[in-house]
């Protein structure tokens, strides 16, 4: 079974470069993700207030993937966590599944529970593999220190999200070191970025964000590697011009640069290229940009 990329809502509207770089990197590894079905929102933004709408939203996407005989490859950790939770709920509670399927059947869809959901970082780590990545790296980002943002909804609850990382997760650190980046151990590494509270309690939200960024800076990190639009935009919104806080970069862009792909193909805009060059500092990708 092949994969279908699930872009979600936030990436197409606010972080197109994440999608561009993911596609470019996947293409370089010969992975075909085809074209996207007419997916809807994963339901995550409605979990707080309306579980019914959330579950139907997730189930409809899973049913669409099943109908086309593919698995779902997500780029957003909140989409990932929501899909996993919904799958678990629909697999445990068959009455709920029947209710959802009664609605889905109106448009000829059915949730059967066969489509798998994978996050791009997990895909790169386990299905592409570290060795394949190392072999493709032509410009290792040596000398760059970064903090990995694991993201809560990717990691937890671990018995549902099934990352098979016993104890302390390390897949993101491994992915970073595979391209030559020094992945830092910093305080609150596995904590939340603060995004879920942005708006609801913006002051608290920003406090959490800055605390993480400062912890990375304390360890000498110049950037924070992300794999989720919520985390990424949350960090991007907290840093200000001129401060010495690390800049967020989505991992596929770092990977792509290390693989010698052009910044244009990775969706790195001219304005970001400059920031990125400063953040990457010593790495020799700087000349290529």
């Amino acid at each position: 079974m092949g994969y279908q990329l699930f872009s979600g809502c936030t990436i197409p509207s606010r972080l197109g470069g994440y999608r561009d770089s993911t596609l470019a990197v996947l293409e370089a590894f010969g992975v075909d993700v085809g074209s996207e079905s007419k997916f809807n929102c994963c339901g995550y933004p409605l979990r707080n207030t309306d579980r019914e709408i959330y579950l139907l939203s997730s189930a409809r996407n899973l049913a669409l993937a099943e109908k086309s005989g593919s698995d779902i490859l997500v780029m957003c950790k909140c989409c990932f966590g929501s899909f996993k939770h919904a799958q678990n709920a629909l697999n445990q509670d068959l009455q709920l599944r029947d209710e959802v399927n009664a609605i889905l059947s109106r448009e000829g869809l059915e949730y059967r529970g066969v489509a798998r959901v994978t996050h791009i970082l997990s895909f790169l780590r386990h299905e592409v593999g570290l060795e394949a990545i190392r072999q493709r790296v032509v410009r290792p980002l040596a000398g760059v220190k970064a903090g990995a943002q694991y993201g809560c909804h990717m990691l937890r609850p671990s018995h549902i999200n099934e990352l098979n990382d016993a104890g302390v997760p390390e897949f993101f650190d491994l992915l970073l070191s595979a391209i030559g980046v020094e992945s830092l151990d910093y305080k609150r590494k596995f904590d939340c970025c603060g995004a879920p509270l942005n708006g609801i309690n913006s002051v608290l939200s920003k406090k959490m964000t800055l605390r993480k960024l400062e912890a990375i800076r304390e360890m000498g990190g110049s950037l924070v590697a992300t794999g989720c639009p919520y985390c990424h935009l949350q960090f991007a919104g907290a840093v200000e011009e001129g401060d010495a806080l690390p800049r967020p970069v989505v991992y596929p862009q770092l990977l792509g640069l290390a693989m010698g792909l052009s910044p244009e193909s990775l969706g790195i805009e001219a304005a970001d290229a400059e920031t990125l060059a400063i953040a990457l500092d010593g790495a020799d990708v700087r000349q290529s940009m």
Partner: protein
Amino acid sequence: MDTLILYLSVGLFTVGFVYRVSTWFTRDAWYLSRVGAGRVGPWARLQALGRGVSGFWKGHLLLKVIWECLKQGVIQVRLLEKNRFRWSMHMLIFIGFLGLTLMHGFEQIISERFFPDYYSTLNPYFFLRDLFGLFVLAGLAMAVGRRLVMRRKGLLSNGMDYGAIAVLAVIVLSGIFLEAAKISSHTEFMDMVDEYAMLDDEEEIEALEAYWERDFGLAVPGERGAEDPDLLEMGQEIHEESCMSCHSNPRWAMTGYLLATSVGDETALHFDRAGAVTFFWWTHYLSCFLFLAWIPYGKMFHMFSTPLSLVVNAVAGKNGGAEALSIRRSLALDACTRCGTCSQYCSVQPAYTLIQNPLILPSEKITFFKSRAGQKELSGDDFARARQGVTLCTDCGNCSRVCPSGIDLRSLWQHMKGDLLQSGKSDAMFLSPLSFGSCMEEGGVDSELLVPAKEKLAGRFDELSDSQRVIHIGEGASENEFSSFHVEACFQCGGCSSVCPVADTVDDPQESLGLLPHQVIQALKLGEVEMAEGAPMIWNCLTCYLCQEYCPQGVLVTDLFYELKNRAYRRTGEGQRLASGHRIGSGR
């Protein structure tokens, strides 16, 4: 009489047209609240227009405008890129109707002036008229088919959508019936003979009649008996001499000819005597002018507003400041053709499936706001419905991306959301990552503005946290309500609270959170559900799942918090059903 109707419909058209255009300079695109900052008056907008138009003479701007008119208005590139089926459908109607209007409708003004050999009954014009008519009919059939087939997939149609199709269909079909009636009409034939052929000899008329009956679909009264080759030959000679130079064979008018010959002579004669020609002429004439008069009042106004909106967007981009933006937003409301594409790609369509509030869908939202434009502030059910529709948006921008009319729908919704937020009238559903998009906009979201929504959901904590209040252990504790979250297993180790990053970050947990996570669980164990629901803790939860992950007893703490938020939302009246059966986010 007919001239009077012409003037009347042109008058109605002009009044409506001027009104519609004037709204671009007076109207604002959002009507949820009157707070909306940055409102721009008509004078400032007119000045902006003046600046924009005077810029035409600089550089190649005029050339660009002409090029975009061609690209967007004639070839309709954007629609072609978005959807080939709809482009084909629209092109058939567009080319067919434009062809008919210019060649046939304005024959005295355009065809006769620019084509000296023009004659409505001569080829190629004779044939083209029917071909154009067929184009329109084919396009309309595709439109009806699409609306019926796609209804299952969430394409909503209203009276206006079918009305527009119906009016066009009546115009074209009455034209075809008129043509058919004329082809077989003996009365018409005799009139033409009198007027053009100037035949006096009865036998010559009979010969021509016979020839036209055989070849041209004419229905002649009375029995003639067997064909007479001499008579037919004579008829052909007369035809070639008197008729042929101005009248092609009606077979070229294929739709009318087919219709005329398929009904049979008897029926045709009957219709002719009953005055079918006059009847269909009036139907055709009246429907055309009804259509003309209706254009500025209905969705067909998009023939002006949509290309204009596309051209303005293509030429001006996002330039021009607040004044230009106000004009463009108002214009955008008119540029919607109600094709429904946005709603089919809407990310929150499942919410519509469950709630059945059409205002969740962008196409319905824009129709609704257009109908309320410039009227008094929304209230009651209308407001609740509209607010829910505006709030339930993940800001994915699909609607803007797929809109064949190039309307920046996303920025309209963002603006409306901002307006709601500023007025402190936000839906409690905004206390979720639905607000994230707004946070990323300039200035972010000031959470103070959400206090009214928060109080509605969690405002009961103060009285419940009265330290003098006696809690009777065991009373009201419902054993099973939260057992699926393993609440009973909690032995109050406090592990959840010690790993909670929120509890760790706030200065005064009791003040800002009310209860810590383990206390929320304890409250539930004691049956104090309202106390747990009202604790600000659950609304300040990051949903990071650390508590749940580290609970030694397997209590599903985070999932439970989600459930409590859902319950609070439902309990305070949010998300309840209206009498109409629709669920709506109103706290009244």
